[in-house]
Structures are given as structure tokens and as C-alpha cells.
């Protein structure tokens, strides 16, 4: 593009081709008046070699030359792609044969000049060509300029777009950074809330439990010292049960909030039969009241390595629920079984109780959920054992049919035994 522009600023070049030096000199002098660069060649060959090197606006070509005459030279000029469009003015003697030949010969001659050259005619013709040339050049120049402008505009537009895109990219990045910051902040908040909750639980354990423990103890002393009589007995007993209810709620709440993360050192070999019998003893009163028939079968998987306390609370909770949610239409039957499942032991507690409908299904493991008002409880049991089971890498689920019964299945992961505590299972 720039080269093109430079070539546009150059003076137009005119080539004079004649084998006679005097003719060349005369023509050169005549054309000096123009603002143009004049080249001369003494032969067709010389003309061709100059034509390769320079761009000419016009060639004045003598026809009668030795070796390669003007016609032959013109033919060669026309046959070259780079020079085919250069205007040629033939210089010819006023000879009938020559003119005929020129007319019949399609070399694209633009004009003729007859020798001896008439100065005025020559100048006016050359002038016309130069004018046409500069007009063409100007047009070309304008065209190039327009193109340049277009290209510049395009470039500017592209640059603008690039800047916009970069801006957008920066915006996107800062948004990403902001949201990352937000996530980090949220994680920190969550951690802090968690910590606060733990602290709350700790305070609750001590500051709330301590006076309740005292109340309970003081009431016992009150009873023990014989201050209770027929008149106040009912009131004292009600105070007793209220206090013990607060105590239990608090105890459970603490377990929900602060159940210990991993208690690997408490992993023991657990004998399902022995543990379940212990639990049955604890629940003796409730089982008797409900007149429940409980069947145990741990033959397929008699033992598991687990946290003793968790295993106990799992069985106790599931059994208590089975009793609580028994059907009043029939005698309660509960079957507790185990079977191995890979590295897990699947514990099943199946009953023939009320069952759980689809609405209850989602609530079963929620906090403070009680599915009926008929039963007592705080609705924390299943929530607690679910957290315990999951913290040990296991899971709990159930199948249930309304008025037929429920079957709770717990996948208990066989945990690695702690060496120091090994064999100390009670």
C-alpha cells in the first residue's frame, strides 16, 4: 500500500525508442517541457529491458529499426502482462505500406506520428496521455486513500472491539473474583457460625445443665429427707418430671450440636446379641407395656467394629420408635437382624406398626419431627443417629407401607479397630 503511494508521487516516465541518436535527442528535447522523466533506448532489445525495470506512461516507438523493428517490439511489449497496457505511439514515415501494415496488425497501437515529427502535434498528443495518466493516477490515489481510510476505520473498529472485549473480559474476571471472594466469605461465615454453635452448645452444657442438675439433686435430697407428704407429693413429682425433661432435652440437644466428629479410639468389636440384650433390658418397661414380641437373628453377621455408644443408640432409637409408632390394631412384632454387605454390616429393624406415608417420608430424619401427637419424644432421635451413622461413613434408609409396618436398614461400616483399646469391649 505504501509502496503504491510512493509510486504515485513519482514523475511519469516516457520512453523514446529510435535507432538514430539525433532523432532521440530531438524528441528528448521536445519533451523536456513536460514535468516528466524521459528515457531513451537505441534498439527494441534495449527498450524491452528498460520496460522490465520501469513503469512507463508512454512509449514513443520508431517502426523502422534494424534487427528488431518497432512492430516486433510492440508485439513483445503487448505479450508481457506487465506492459500490455502501456500506450504506444508509433513513429512512422509517411509510407502507405507501413500504415497498411499497422492497421492490419493488431498490436494495440494507440496512435501514430508521422515523420518528420511536427512539434505541436507531438506535444499535444503527449500532453493528452500525461493528462489521462495523472487523472488515472489521481483516481487510483483516491481509491487507495479511500481504501486506506476504510482499512483504518476497520482497524479502529477492531481496536475498539478488542478494547471492549478486554473490558468485558476484565469485568467477567472481576465478577468471578468477587464471587470467589463471596464464596470464601460464606465459607468463613459458615465456619464461624459453626464455631458459635459449638460454643453455644458448650455454654448450654455447663451454664444450663449445671443448675438443672442441681435442681434435680436438690429435689432428691428433699424427697430423701422426708419433706414430701401426701399433700405436696403430686406437685413435687410434677416438678421432678419437668426437671428431668429439661435435662433430657438439653442432653439430646447437645448431642445434636456437638456430637463428636471422630471417635476412632472408641471403636470396639461389638457383639450384636449382647448389645441388643442390654438395650432390651433398658427398655424392659416399655416393651412390657407395649406387649411387644421381639425376634433377634444375628447369625449372618454377629459382630461389627463400631463405636459402642453409636451402635447402642442406633438400636435403642430404632427399637424405641418401633414401640412408639406401633399399631393399636395388632400385637407389635419387631425383628432385628444383621447381614454382611461388603465392608458393611446391614442392620435391619422391621416392625408391623403404623408405617410412614409419603408425607412423613421426608420428615423422618429431620430435626424436631414427631409424626403423630400420640407419642412422646422430642423428635431428635433419628436425626442424631443419622448424623452418627453418616459420620462413620455409613447410611440409613427405610421402606414402609402405611398400616403394614416399616423396615429401617442401617449400613454400618466396619471401622478399623484401635490397637490400644483392642479387646477391651465390654
Amino acid at each position: 500500500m505504501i509502496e503504491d503511494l510512493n509510486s504515485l508521487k513519482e514523475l511519469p516516465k516516457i520512453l523514446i525508442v529510435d535507432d538514430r541518436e539525433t532523432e532521440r535527442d530531438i524528441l528528448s528535447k521536445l519533451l523536456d517541457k513536460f514535468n516528466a522523466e524521459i528515457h531513451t533506448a537505441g534498439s527494441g532489445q534495449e527498450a524491452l529491458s528498460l520496460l522490465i525495470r520501469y513503469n512507463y506512461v508512454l512509449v514513443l516507438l520508431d517502426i523502422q529499426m534494424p534487427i528488431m523493428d518497432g512492430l516486433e517490439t510492440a508485439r513483445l511489449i503487448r505479450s508481457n502482462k506487465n506492459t500490455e497496457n502501456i500506450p504506444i505511439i508509433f513513429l512512422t514515415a509517411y509510407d502507405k505500406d507501413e500504415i497498411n501494415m499497422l492497421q492490419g496488425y493488431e498490436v494495440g497501437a494507440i496512435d501514430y506520428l508521422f515523420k518528420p515529427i511536427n512539434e505541436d502535434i507531438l506535444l499535444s498528443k503527449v500532453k493528452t496521455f500525461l493528462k489521462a495518466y495523472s487523472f488515472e493516477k489521481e483516481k487510483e490515489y483516491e481509491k487507495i486513500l479511500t481504501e486506506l481510510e476504510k482499512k483504518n476505520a476497520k482497524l479502529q473498529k477492531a481496536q475498539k472491539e478488542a478494547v471492549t472485549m478486554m473490558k468485558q473480559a476484565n469485568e467477567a474476571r472481576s465478577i468471578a473474583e468477587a464471587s470467589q471472594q463471596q464464596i470464601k466469605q460464606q465459607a468463613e461465615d459458615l465456619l464461624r457460625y459453626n464455631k458459635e454453635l459449638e460454643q453455644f452448645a458448650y455454654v448450654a452444657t455447663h451454664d444450663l445443665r449445671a443448675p438443672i442438675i442441681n435442681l434435680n439433686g436438690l429435689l432428691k435430697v428433699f424427697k430423701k429427707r422426708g419433706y414430701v407428704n401426701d399433700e405436696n407429693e403430686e406437685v413435687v413429682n410434677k416438678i421432678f418430671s419437668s426437671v428431668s425433661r429439661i435435662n433430657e432435652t438439653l442432653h439430646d440437644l447437645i448431642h445434636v450440636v456437638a456430637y463428636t466428629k471422630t471417635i476412632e479410639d472408641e471403636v470396639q468389636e461389638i457383639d450384636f446379641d449382647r448389645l441388643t440384650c442390654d438395650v432390651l433390658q433398658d427398655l424392659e418397661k416399655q416393651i412390657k407395656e407395649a406387649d411387644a414380641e421381639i425376634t433377634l437373628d444375628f447369625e449372618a453377621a454377629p459382630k461389627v467394629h463400631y463405636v459402642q455408644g453409636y451402635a447402642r443408640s442406633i438400636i435403642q432409637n430404632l427399637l424405641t420408635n418401633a414401640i412408639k409408632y406401633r399399631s393399636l390394631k395388632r400385637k407389635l412384632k419387631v425383628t432385628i437382624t444383621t447381614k454382611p454387605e461388603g465392608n458393611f454390616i446391614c442392620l435391619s429393624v422391621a416392625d408391623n406398626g403404623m408405617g410412614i406415608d409419603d408425607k412423613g417420608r421426608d420428615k423422618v430424619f429431620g430435626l424436631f419431627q414427631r409424626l403423630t401427637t400420640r407419642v412422646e419424644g422430642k423428635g431428635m432421635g433419628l436425626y442424631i443417629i443419622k448424623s452418627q451413622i453418616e459420620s462413620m461413613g455409613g447410611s440409613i434408609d427405610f421402606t414402609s407401607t402405611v398400616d403394614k409396618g416399616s423396615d429401617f436398614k442401617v449400613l454400618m461400616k466396619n471401622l478399623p479397630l484401635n490397637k490400644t483399646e483392642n479387646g477391651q469391649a465390654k
Partner: protein
Amino acid sequence: MAKLNNVLVIDDDDEYNFLTEDTFMDTELECNLVFKEMAQEALDYLEENSFPDLILLDINMPVMNGWEFLEEYQERNYHTKHDTLIVMISSSCYHEDRVKAKSYPKVVEYIEKPISCDDIHELHEKYFGATTEG
């Protein structure tokens, strides 16, 4: 094994101390109980009197808590100079507290409040030889 004669109870909770005393009475062990409601008072007491056979130590106390008391106890080398056993008493059912307690020398048990007759009898049998009287 030493006989369980003297017990130092360190707890800021006055009502609870009343219950502890009552419970000890029920055991009929005839121990001599000394109560201190501040850990610092207990340290001063130990400095000037003969060491008890057993210390019942509460964890959550204002000014100096049970842990800080244990640090100071170690700092003064009481744990190497005396046979006194320490039992942590707390209403905290935190597993971490239980584990932490066992990391201190001379701390032999961790009992969740309230301490019962059975707890005291068990301590008596386990660490002070004798089979329970009465």
C-alpha cells in the same frame, strides 16, 4: 494404698457443693471434705495445709478454670511431690474434655455431674483399696 480420708472439692457452684456433701454423707465413708469455690483459694490452701488424698475438680469456673488449675498444679510440681489423685467433675459431656483430662498426670477419672454414691464407692474401691463399708 492410702485410705480415703481427706477430699478437696474445687467448684464455684455452691448448690452443687451442697449436693456433693450430701452424697458423701450418704456413702457413710466418713471422709473429711474441704470445699473451695475458687481455684486460686484451693492453691493457697494446698500451699499451707497437708495434701488431701483426692481432689474433685470442676472444669468451668470463673477467673481460673479447672485446666488452668491443673497447669499451675504441674508448674508447682505438686504432681511429683504428692500422691494426691485428681478426678475431674463437669456438667460438660464433651468428648474432647474427657480426652484432654486424661492427658494430665494424676487425673485418673472424669465424672459427669452429678456425682453419685456409686461413683464415690467406685473411686473408693478402685483407688483406695478397701471394700466399701456398710
